[in-house]
C-alpha cells in the first residue's frame, strides 16, 4: 500500500496528464516542481510536521481543483447546446429507429 500523500501525488499527475494537450508529462514544470516539494518534505524532521500537514492539505486542495474543473468541463461539454439535433440523433435519444434503418 502507498502512503496517502503518494496516492494524492499520483492522482494529481493523472489529472495533469489528462488535462494538458501534449498528453505527456515529460518536461512538465509543474510535475517537476511537485516531485521536488515531495522530496523536500519527505526528508523534513518531525519538528516541523505542522508544515507537512499544510503541504498535504494544499496538495489535496490542488487535486480537488483539478478534478472538479475537469468534471465541470465534462458535464458542460456533454449537455451544452450545439444547435439543433438531426433526426437521426433525436431518434437515437428516445430509442427509435428511422424507417430505413435495419431492424
Amino acid at each position, binding site marked *: 500500500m502507498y502512503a496517502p500523500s503518494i496516492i494524492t501525488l499520483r492522482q494529481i499527475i493523472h489529472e*495533469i496528464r489528462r*488535462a*494538458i*494537450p501534449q498528453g505527456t508529462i515529460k518536461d*512538465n*514544470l*509543474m510535475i517537476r*516542481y511537485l516531485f521536488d*516539494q515531495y522530496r*523536500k*518534505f519527505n526528508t*523534513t*524532521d518531525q519538528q*516541523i510536521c505542522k*508544515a507537512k*500537514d*499544510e*503541504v498535504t*492539505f*494544499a496538495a*489535496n*486542495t*490542488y487535486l*480537488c*481543483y483539478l478534478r*472538479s*474543473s475537469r*468534471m*465541470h*468541463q465534462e*458535464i*458542460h461539454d*456533454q*449537455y451544452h447546446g450545439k444547435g439543433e439535433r438531426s433526426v437521426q440523433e433525436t431518434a437515437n435519444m428516445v430509442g427509435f429507429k428511422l424507417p430505413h434503418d435495419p431492424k
Partner: protein
Amino acid sequence: MSLMLNAIRILNKKLIFSAPNNQLIKRSYAVARKRFYRKTGILYNDGKYEITLDQRKLKTPKGNLFVVDSEPLAFAIATEWNMQKEKIWLTSMHLTTLSNTVIDNPNNLTKYEMVEYIVNHLDSDAILFQSHENDDLYKLQVEEWDPVIQWFCDKFQVDLKKSRDMNAPVLDTETKATITRHLLSYNFECVHGYVYAVDTLKSLILTLACVERFLTPEKAASLSRLEEEFQLKKWGRIEWAHDLSQQDQEARLSSTILFIYFNSTSWLTKQKNNR
C-alpha cells in the same frame, strides 16, 4: 489604441446582427481566443514570478505585467494556461482571473473596504440560519453545521447565536472586531481571495474553517449546499444542473483556498533553511 482595436475586432466578429427583417439576432459573447502558444513557463525576476507563453510575457486585461509573489502559485497558473486545448477559456482559469483582479484591481477597492464587506457577511451567514419549517432538515443542519459553528467560537473566542426565523442573529461588536482584526492580518491578495470565497460559499464561517484546514474544500462546499442536497434526496438529482453547479463551486473554492495559502505563508521557501 490597442483596446479600441480589440473592441472593433470583437464588434466585427460577433456582437449583434439585427437584420432588417428581424430574422437573425445573435447574442453577444466575447469570442474565446485560440491557443496561440505552445509552451508555458515561469520567470523569476526581481523577487517576483512572471508567466511566459512561449517567448511572450503574460499580461493582465488592463495591460499590466502579470506578476505573482509565490512560486507554487506561478507554477499552478502556468499549468492552467498549459491546460487550454484549442481555445483559451478564461472562465475556467480561476487562479489566473483572481490574480488578474488583484493586479488590476478594477473596482479600486482597498483592503479595509473588502474586510468590512466580508465581516458584514457574518450577520447573514448561511449556516447561522437554520430551518424552522422542516424538522428533518433542522436535525441535519444541527448535526452538520453546529460542530463548525462550535469550532469557530472556540477558535476565535467569540460567541455566535443562530437563528430559526427571519430575524438575523445579533452579533456583538466584540465578535466583529475580533474577526476584522484576524482578516486584516492577511495581505491584500489574500483578502481578495476571501471576498471570492465568501461569495462562493455564502458563508464566512465555512470559508475560515476551510482556510484553517478544519474542513476540506469538498466538505465545505457540500456543507454550503446542505439544504439543496437534502431536497435532492427527495426530488431527484439532475446532472446538468446540480452536479454542474457542485463541481463549479468546488473548483472555485479550492482554487481560492490555494490562492490564499500561496499568498499568505512562506512555508514552501522557508522550511529548508532551518536545517
